[in-house]
């Protein structure tokens, strides 16, 4: 029983680190452009497909393929920001929401046409390596997901805190007009934000594609959970997002293992309700980035 508990907890942490990567992108885009990007899950899906095609097409090993896919998705993110989202910056929130629904519908169905609905698996060379320690059982692939997640969030935290671009991003998140007056190229910051968000989503998608499966409709459930993470994280800072994503991953995994697997998609909502009851003012109170 104890062993099963720890096994589920480990799986939950790995799951949480994947939600974290998607949620960080959403959080940055939300904080800086004030847009809820419901199409973010499609970036994650496209990132997974990009890794798959780089591996099957060029015969590249898994990790270089993931990096290449992240670069492709960064370019894609910049294009999407310029073409789709820039016209509606500063408009009412419902516009951005519906725009991203449109984008999400478009990307999902275009992927469905181009890539077909068959679920596929990214065959990474780490899948066959099984590790056992303290009675826990884990594939190297899953540990790799955890490691990549940790490394990326470390990079991101350093980037936001200490580089000039990162500081400019925080300034734009605090006050766009004041940042513009201080000479920060706001539109370039938007592009950087989208590039980073798409890269993180792409990395998460590639990991999920290796552990589970890749299919055109994989984005939608993830994006909602990532939003829950962003809300639970309190819109405050990266640390909040990390804690909240681990919570959501653990609750989903432990709940799915010990309570009822069928209801596992519902548990994050219960977490949210609990948070409302305990901290009715705190969720919205925190300021962004």
């Amino acid at each position: 029983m104890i062993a099963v508990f720890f096994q589920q907890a480990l799986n939950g942490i790995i799951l949480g680190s994947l939600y974290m990567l998607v949620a960080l992108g959403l959080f940055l885009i939300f904080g800086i452009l004030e847009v809820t990007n419901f199409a973010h899950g499609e970036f994650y899906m496209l990132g997974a497909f990009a890794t798959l095609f780089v591996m099957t097409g060029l015969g590249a090993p898994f990790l270089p393929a993931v990096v290449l896919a992240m670069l492709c998705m960064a370019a894609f993110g910049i294009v999407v920001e310029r073409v789709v989202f820039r016209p509606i910056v500063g408009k009412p929130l419902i516009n951005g929401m519906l725009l991203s629904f449109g984008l999400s519908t478009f990307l999902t169905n275009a992927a469905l046409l181009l890539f077909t609905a068959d679920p596929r698996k990214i065959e990474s060379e780490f899948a066959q390596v099984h590790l056992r320690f303290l009675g826990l059982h884990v594939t190297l692939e899953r540990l790799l997901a955890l490691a990549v997640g940790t490394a990326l969030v470390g990079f991101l935290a350093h980037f936001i805190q200490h580089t000039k671009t990162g500081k400019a991003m925080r300034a734009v998140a605090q006050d766009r007009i004041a940042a513009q007056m201080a000479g920060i190229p706001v539109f370039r910051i938007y592009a950087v934000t989208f590039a980073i968000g798409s890269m993180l989503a792409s990395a998460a998608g590639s990991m999920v594609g290796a552990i589970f499966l890749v299919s055109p409709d994989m984005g939608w459930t993830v994006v909602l959970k990532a939003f829950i993470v962003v809300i639970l994280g309190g819109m405050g800072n990266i640390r909040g997002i990390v804690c909240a994503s681990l919570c959501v991953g653990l609750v989903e995994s432990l709940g799915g293992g010990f309570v009822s697997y069928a209801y596992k998609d519902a548990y994050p909502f219960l977490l949210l309700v609990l948070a409302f009851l305990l901290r009715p003012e705190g969720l919205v109170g925190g300021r962004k980035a």
Partner: protein
Amino acid sequence: MNRAGRWIAALCTAAGLLCVPALFSLDYYLHIFVMAGIHAMLAISLGLIIGFTGQVSLCHAAFYGIGAYGSALASLTLGLPFWLAMWAGGLSAGVLSYTLGRLVLRLRGHFLAITTAFFGVLVTVVLNNWVSVTKGPMGIPGIPRPGLPVFLGSWTTFESRVSYYYLVVAFVAGIAYLAYRIVGSRLGRALIAIRENEELAQSLGIETMRYKVFAFTLGGGLAGVAGAFYAHYILFISPVTFTIGESINILVMVVFGGMTTLAGPIIGAAILTILPELLRMAGALRLVIYGLTLMAFIVWMPQGIVGAVRELTTRTRTGKPGG
């Protein structure tokens, strides 16, 4: 428009709607019109929440589904006729939306939208897994048609599409009239005040939370009535109809028509029910085109059809280039 003009417009619309079955007698067309009517009920009720009170809700299909299941179960297990089961559907949706509203309406903007979206997912999960009551993904078949009480308690049921068409027109008219009376009243002005500036409204003595919960409950309850109508029209319900995709669909109808108006949601529902049928010939490309159209529409015409028409008429009347 003056009072007489309004009456004439209303009478012309009514006459036009009553003539529709004579012009389009095919069952296929009538089915689309009935579905447009159901969507119009949903869009009007969501319009009360989103357009007039300014609270973005992404779980309208959940209340639609709860109404459908509530009504279907009431008529199948308790043997209630449609006219009573409908209330069971509407009330169960209303009670749930009241509970949810009390819990989440203190959130604003994006937070409210995402939380309600997740509530919609929760309802879908429950409908799929609570097999002993909802029969899960198999759905509930064999829901009885509505009956009309005729003399001496003998019941005739709605057999033809034409009769359903007239029934849906009556329902939409009733709900639209209710919304019209609310919007024109003190209550409606309080809701609009909350939409425009919640802090200011509160400082003027409007109990914003109570009014927001009221709008949310009424909208949810009316969506439940629409769900009951759907259940007793299609005669089969399953969870796939009431997903978050449908919530977004209803939201798009409201915004497409013009969310701060009463006519907007109805027009949006009619157009966005009929247009996808025309797109059927595009096959697999249909949803790709739909996504592109939605994006283009949000970028170029964010105020909706009714809003754009209004802007155009004021521009020609005043001779000024509008903003």
